[in-house]
């Protein structure tokens, strides 16, 4: 007996989607052979996913046993600390291999870098030694200037991203919802999206100057375009089969949206959002390089002008790190929103 009944919509959603996925998958398989059905692996996976959900709902670790809908699994009271410890060591244990592998390539790069500065493969002015970069980082963390620049750049990106993503979701959603809307707006959207973001710089500088407005608009624009595309594609590409299932089950518009369309569109929307964030960073750095008085991009420009490329590299590392964290977070959210999905 399940410990607590899952909300109907969630289990229904899952079943609907799994079967729809099977339906859609069939169309692919039809390319090779008609009438080929997925192996039983699919079904067992569905079951284990549901079980996962049950256990996750209860907060306990899922037992590594064969599939079973029964059992409540202990939620031993007072074992929370042990559970946390166990969870962490499990995570590290499971991921240790991956962590090591993931660090291996950067390690190789670092070794090459260090060798280059030791043996002078590249002039020291162009590729300063790692120790120098480290020194600069320490100095800038020490006097707080790194935090100042980072926070300014972060704020700019977040502002631009919020504006651009909101606008993109709105426009993409509207265009996907209404064919008419799409027909009216798409040509203009296409036209704007074809112009490289930096191409707007001379025009915008002449019109609005080099203040925060310039950065906000350019970052927002570079985010807006992929998010609109991702949202539009995501919603429009929800396979017809899914919608049919929804119609068969006589879903209302809201329910259709909530249980079928949005979850199915999530991957594409999130791809759009991730690309938007990445674009936003790139644009911000480029704009700060061109015209700014502070920020990480400005630091890069400043370092280049004063022939202190360690400043450039230090700023690059910070930018890459922050971007990685952003991407990681967005990826996590995407995974969470897609937990119904099964490897097809």
């Amino acid at each position, binding site marked *: 007996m399940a410990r607590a009944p899952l909300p109907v919509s969630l289990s229904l959603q899952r079943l609907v989607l799994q079967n729809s996925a099977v339906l859609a998958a069939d169309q*692919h398989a039809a390319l090779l*052979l008609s009438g080929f059905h997925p192996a039983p692996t699919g079904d067992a996976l569905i079951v284990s996913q549901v079980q996962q959900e049950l256990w996750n709902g209860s907060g306990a670790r899922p037992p590594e046993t064969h599939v079973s809908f029964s059992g409540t699994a202990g939620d031993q009271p007072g074992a929370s600390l042990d559970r946390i410890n166990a969870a962490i060591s499990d995570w590290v244990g499971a991921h240790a291999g991956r962590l090591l592998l993931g660090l291996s390539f950067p390690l190789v790069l670092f070794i090459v870098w260090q060798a280059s500065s030791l043996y002078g493969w590249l002039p020291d002015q162009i590729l300063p030694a790692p120790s120098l970069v480290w020194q600069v980082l320490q100095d800038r963390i020490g006097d707080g200037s790194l935090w100042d620049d980072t926070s300014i750049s972060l704020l700019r990106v977040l502002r631009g991203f919020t504006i651009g993503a909101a606008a993109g979701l709105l426009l993409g959603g509207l265009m996907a919802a209404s064919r008419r809307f799409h*027909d009216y707006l798409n040509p203009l959207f296409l*036209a704007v999206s074809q112009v490289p973001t930096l191409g707007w710089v001379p025009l915008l*500088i002449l*019109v609005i100057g080099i203040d925060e407005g310039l950065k906000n608009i350019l970052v927002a624009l570079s985010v807006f375009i992929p998010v609109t595309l991702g949202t539009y594609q995501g919603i429009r590409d929800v396979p017809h089969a899914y919608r049919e299932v929804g119609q068969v089950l006589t879903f209302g518009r809201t329910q259709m949206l909530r249980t079928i369309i949005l979850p199915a569109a999530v991957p594409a929307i999130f791809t759009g959002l991730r690309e938007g964030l*990445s674009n936003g960073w790139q644009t911000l750095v480029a704009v700060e390089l*061109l015209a700014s008085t502070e920020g990480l991009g400005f630091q890069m420009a400043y370092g280049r002008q004063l022939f202190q490329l360690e400043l450039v590299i230090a700023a690059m590392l910070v930018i*890459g790190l922050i971007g*990685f964290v952003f991407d990681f977070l967005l990826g996590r959210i995407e995974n969470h929103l897609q937990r119904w999905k099964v490897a097809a």
Partner: protein
Amino acid sequence: MSDRINPRLARIWRAIALPLLLLAAWEASTRLSLVDPHLLPPLEDVIARGWTESRNGDFVTALLASLGRDLAGFAIGALIGTTTGLLLGFLRPAQAIFGPTLRVHRQIALFAWVPLIAVWFGAGEPGKIAFIALAAFQPSLINTWRGVQEIPDRFKELAAVLTFSRLDFLRFVGIPAILPAIFTGLKAALIYAWQATIGAELFMTIAPGIGGVMMQGRQLFQMDLVLLTILLLGLVGAGFNTLAGLSETLLLRRRTS
């Protein structure tokens, strides 16, 4: 509105409605002197400028130079990116090894590489082309890689069941499954390459190019030239997109989805 009359006509009308409205507003604001003519020159001026510039040998040279750079960089970057993506995709541990580094690399602004590239390849043509290639490299790598990774397991199982040889696998399963992803990568690479071309022209040594023309327009306060170049950039971008879309449709025609 006129759906009953002729659906195609209706769609064409809808497509041009907004742009026409904007053009009308532009014309109106000039006639009514609503906007500073320095900031928004009359429509006729921009068109006239376009006409004179198209006769101007320098302008055409600039455009061709930019296009040449763009295509050269794109070709190099996309080629290297796609091949690397294919290699990495078929290598199981590659995701774990190179994945995180690649994600971090994606976030580092392309323009931060300019000093290094200027040193390794020079700040002239080779440098700009290397920069553009770097921009094209990434999307083609990522998309191809993902395409290989996401060959559904079912397909692989199917091929195993049918005891496909490696070559057959590639021919009937692998390549048809990967091609769409490769094309997505190429389309993205084309866009990024064009963006990088403009960036390279703004950030690196002068040479004929559309970016240079734009800078010129801005510095000489010739707004009509700036608007003209923006229009041109958009047209080229659109041209690329259409070309990419057409070739995709043609080459992937046999796909049913």
